[in-house]
């Protein structure tokens, strides 16, 4: 059905594009875009779409029913989880249903006649809708954020000192990284990681520059994650490591036992930091037969906690960006498909985007199986009944999907909030980098689809 719609669209498109004056179909007038966006917002408000926010507030309030069964210290987490899940769900509903039904209802009720017969290009109509719905979504997310903060602060006020402090620490993870005397470990190697061993007295070194003493409290928090083990014992996944922090104000050394890939926190005195603002962190193996592996982004410094509300707002931007990708796809699809099909496509994007990591891992497994089969080996990871051509097909489709669909993990606010971490400027930039290209591409596609659509 979708392919049929596309074939018809492009057949028409070729005819329409050759018509004189067709170029005007793509001309965009900002004032008219704003007029349509404004009307979209106004109409949504009249349709009482914002009543969903009242449902959100009720959903949030209902979390208090579980307070007696949760210790006071856990109540903040309960509210955070509750608020994030509810915000995520309600934003998804709004993004899917409003964007999926806006254009189809204009087509069905023939209101589109009133727009296309005015000096408004079809591209302007699409952009106006996109802008109006994006603003609607932004209002939703912002209001949900404000309701959440008011609710949490209210509970904090009523709970007294037993309520846990609301912390969101911002990370710095852009240190220069290098491995001194690196080791090549064929079994443990991961192409993204560097390894050192105790034998070679190697070290993993991060250098942070431009640090300001005022950005930290008494202590500088560190968080790291390492591969730890032994080249001679493939079953060992833990070991001792030595941290040495060097700055112009002195040196701090600490030894720690940790498991492989375990996130570990350290503190070093902020007084070490001199006016040059440079801090070198060395990690070495503490065991004589051990190895240590990490990548650049596996170590982060924590700044002094900032205002929780500000950190929370940054997290909501991630939620907004995620919803924007879904909204753009659903709106673009709705320019040529019916509302239910467009919404279904939006749901599919949610599902694939959320399962991105699994799909990626699965594709890697399939490729490994194919490689093994090509080498004439019996693949332990691919059942015999699956023919190689199907594995190849699955791998190709998965790779294509992974190229198109953004990884929703970049928009996952909960992984920061529930660990008392703030979304850093870099996290935000990464999320923007993953959301903006698909939104732009889908926006242009939607404009083209509408430009060549006729309303017979």
């Amino acid at each position, binding site marked *: 059905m979708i392919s*049929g719609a596309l*074939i*018809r669209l492009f*057949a*028409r498109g070729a*005819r*329409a594009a050759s*018509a*004189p*004056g*067709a170029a*005007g*179909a793509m*001309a965009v*007038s900002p*004032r*008219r875009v704003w*007029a*349509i966006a*404004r*009307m979209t917002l*106004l*109409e949504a408000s*009249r*349709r009482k779409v914002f009543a969903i926010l009242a449902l959100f507030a009720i959903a949030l309030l209902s979390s208090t029913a579980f307070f007696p069964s949760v210790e006071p210290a856990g109540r903040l987490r309960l509210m955070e989880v509750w608020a994030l899940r509810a915000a995520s769900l309600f934003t998804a509903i709004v993004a899917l249903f409003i964007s999926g039904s806006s254009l189809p209802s204009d087509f069905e*009720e*023939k*209101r589109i*006649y*009133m*727009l*296309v*017969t*005015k*000096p*408004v*290009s079809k591209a302007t109509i699409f952009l106006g809708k996109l802008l109006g719905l994006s603003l609607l979504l932004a209002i939703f997310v912002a209001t949900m954020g404000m309701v959440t903060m008011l609710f949490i602060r209210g509970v904090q006020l009523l709970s007294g000192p037993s309520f846990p402090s609301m912390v969101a620490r911002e990370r710095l993870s852009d240190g220069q990284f290098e491995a001194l005397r690196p080791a090549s470990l064929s079994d443990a190697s991961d192409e993204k990681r560097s390894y050192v061993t105790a034998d070679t007295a190697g070290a993993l070194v991060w250098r942070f520059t431009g640090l300001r003493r005022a950005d930290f409290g008494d202590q500088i928090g560190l968080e790291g994650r390492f591969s730890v083990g032994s080249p001679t014992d493939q079953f060992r996944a833990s070991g001792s490591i030595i941290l040495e922090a060097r700055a112009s104000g002195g040196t701090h050394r600490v030894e720690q036992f940790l498991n492989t890939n375990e996130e570990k926190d350290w503190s070093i005195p902020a007084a070490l930091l001199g006016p040059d603002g440079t801090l070198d962190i060395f990690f070495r193996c503490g065991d004589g037969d051990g190895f240590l592996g990490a990548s650049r982004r596996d170590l982060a410094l924590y700044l002094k906690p900032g205002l929780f509300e500000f950190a929370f707002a940054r997290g909501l931007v991630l939620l907004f960006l995620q919803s924007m990708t879904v909204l753009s796809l659903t709106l673009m699809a709705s320019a040529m498909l019916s509302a239910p099909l467009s919404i279904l496509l939006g749901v599919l994007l949610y599902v694939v985007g959320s399962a991105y990591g699994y799909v990626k891992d699965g594709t890697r497994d399939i490729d490994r199986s194919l490689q093994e089969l090509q080498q004439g080996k019996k693949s332990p990871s691919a059942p015999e009944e699956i023919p190689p051509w199907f594995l190849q097909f699955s791998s190709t489709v998965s790779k294509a999907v992974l190229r198109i669909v953004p990884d929703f993990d970049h928009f996952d606010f909960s992984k920061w909030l529930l660990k008392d971490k703030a979304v850093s400027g870099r996290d935000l930039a990464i999320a923007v980098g993953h959301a903006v290209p698909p939104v732009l591409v889908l926006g242009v596609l939607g404009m083209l689809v509408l430009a060549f659509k*006729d*309303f*017979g």
Partner: protein
Amino acid sequence: MTTVLETNRLTKVFKDFWGRPKHKALDALSITINPGEVFGLLGPNGSGKTTTFKLLLGLIFPTEGTATILGRPPTDVTVKSRIGFLPEESYLYRWLNADETLDFFGRLFNLDRATRRKRADQLIEQFGLGHARKRQIREYSKGMMRRVGFCQTLINDPEFVILDEPTSGLDPISSRQIKDLILDLKKRGKTVLLSSHLLADVQQVCDRICILHQGQTKEYGPVRDILVRRDSVQMTFKDLSEGARLKIEELAKAEGAHLVKSENMLETLEDVFLRTVQESGDGLTYRKPAGGAPKENP
């Protein structure tokens, strides 16, 4: 003189899902409309009137043939700033009120705030919607929605007005008001293209017509040329006595003419209705348009 509208063998064939021809809605329509003319497109349901309008407004693309409006193709967005279109039904945003609706359409024409406000006020007053301007359109009657439709058609003071079934859904008073409005637009030099099932209305207001049937042009030309019967003469007298009538009949017979009908002249039902309603004094009044569509600021 440049034509306002010109079509050359304009054809539309609707196709099925697989692109196979399904129905020829319009077959080689070739018409021209001159400036200041009121042109009527007539035909029974399914004759291709609305398809023609959709083609002329760029809502659908022709299968064959060409059309130009004010010298530009229908797909040209800029030419639409000089056109006012009233669709067959009121496809309005039902959750907005009349003020918001007109403000929205005024914005689409890039009119500044003061002009939007002034024109909306004039049109709302002219179409008798002042008492309901703040009510949402979904609460309006069909006739009121139609009148809002007219307001949006004229919000840009268009040169060329396209009216699809303009009197459909209107009571006789409003219907008469629309006919007078069309004549007023003509008086002000505007060009009007309209379609209607109500042939008497068309006869009263149109200069030229085109009759379509099953997508094909059956008649095309000035209304008078199409309607005139060269073999019959109708004379209307006032205060003619019975005796004088008999003498005229006998004279005609002597000259070889055959009397077909001789009776007192009848008023139209519309005239009687309007007079009766106005005389009842219940507030329902017919107002002739004062100046028609709003004029540009001097």
